[in-house]
């Protein structure tokens, strides 16, 4: 992969996605977890190949995959949707949001504790 993609990447997004902006499925979110299900990457474009290699052996969120490939998330989603369609990758719903309590609740608890002491 060309290092230092950033703002002036050599291969532009329209070539990466073949001019498409809309993923073939709308099930992918920033935190959707993905993992590779096929090792065979023959016939895939370089970015898709890198995505499949990246996802071998574990689960990764869409946002993380995009960051590792230095691609915009929206572009990564188009590629991932294709890979899900072709059976190279499987996606699963993200883990439920962790139970971080609302700030007000914590404050109330703190007030209660202080009142007790």
């Amino acid at each position, binding site marked *: 992969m060309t290092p230092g993609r950033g703002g002036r990447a050599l291969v*532009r997004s329209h070539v990466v996605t073949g001019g498409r902006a809309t993923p073939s499925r709308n099930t992918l979110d*920033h935190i959707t977890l993905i993992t590779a299900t096929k090792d065979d990457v023959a016939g895939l474009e*370089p970015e898709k190949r*890198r995505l499949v290699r*990246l996802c071998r052996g574990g689960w990764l969120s869409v946002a993380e995959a995009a960051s590792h490939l230095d691609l915009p998330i*929206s572009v990564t989603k188009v590629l991932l949707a294709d890979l899900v369609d072709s059976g190279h990758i499987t996606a699963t*719903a993200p*883990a439920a949001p962790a139970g*971080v309590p609302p700030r007000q609740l914590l404050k109330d608890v703190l007030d209660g504790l202080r009142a007790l002491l």
Partner: protein
Amino acid sequence: MLTRSTATELWGLSAVLLVVLLVLLVRQRHVTTVQRRRIRSAERDVSLRDEELENLLGNRLPAEVDRAGGADVEVPAARHPELRSTRFGELCEALVVMVGASEAGAHQRSSDEAKETVRGMAAAVQSLAAEQQVAVSGMQAKHNDPAVLEGLLRIDHANSQLGRRAQVLAVLCGAWPGTQRSASELSDVVRGAVSRIRDYLRIEVRVDLPVAVVDTHVEPVVLAVAELLDNAARSSQTGTLVRVHAELGHNGVSVIIDDAGVGMTSEQVGRAAKLVSGREPVDIRRLGNPPQTGFAVCGVLVAKYGFQVSVDTNSPYGGVRAVVFVPNTLLVKAEVSAPVPKTRVRDAPGTSTPANGTTPNGLPMRRRHVPPPASTPVPEVSPASRQEVPQSAERTASAIRSWQRASAAVATERPLAGNLGDQPTEDRQP
């Protein structure tokens, strides 16, 4: 007696006079003949010189001016070669040489000035295009809406072409391509070139070689390949593909571009081969309108950066085959391209591991609860309905329960944080 001798003397004198007269007449005749001949010769000389002057003004000097200006014309020879050895002939030749030199100098100066101006303009456009590219990339990273992305892709495409055009102008005017990149894989180099042309969807790239182009030569090769691809796409019908593949040879790598277009006549091939050879100086004022820059810019890049371009063979599809040969000296081995994340990959959802490391203070780190296996496929929900899900009562209740469990596990080992207000509260919000 006297009379007789006098008469004799008179006769003698007359005879002498006659002889003298005869001699004089003969001499006069000779002188006249010589003079006549001289006059005739002088008249012929004058008319020859007139003709030669006419030839000089009417044919030779205009041709010399054109030739000095860079046109491919032959300066006609003197009409009367016999004058060449004369002073007149020498002066004529000197005049031709002087006019040629003066015209070439003026041409060079005006060309240099024009190039200087155009180079400045091109650099300004290039930097604006680069600025816009960074802005577009920033927006692509920021916005998640496919409709916005679609617009951005179009802007990026147009901007890439704009940047390439400015780059071509700059290079033709003697500037460098204007961007320094790090060593890039050949496939990225070719696809970078594809990014910069109008009909990028018609280009089929099959380049999969483990070689990369050295940093200083990435942009020049990208630009040359982009120009050849643009030529190929423009000279073939919209329904056809332009195929690109690469072949590894002993001395380097060839990037081969085949189109199924109209091809070139032998005259065009000759001209193109001359241009891409890099041995012809390029005059930006002779590129025509619309400007035919593709081969010219390839020639400039070839001369400066040491790769080769050839366009003199036919493609198997009836069009033109263009080959960019990059020698080994400009290549490095490509790095293994699989990106390996440093923070490796979480466990599959639902499998929780108890040990989760410690904080710098040696305390066990808190781990968020992971719900039971979410092996069910992702429900097909629209973005609008997805937003409502976390707000449902059930979700909230589950979140509170999980927080309670997690805090119960930690409470025995860790004192309650002194200032809860400092804790991040929305680190996991999508």
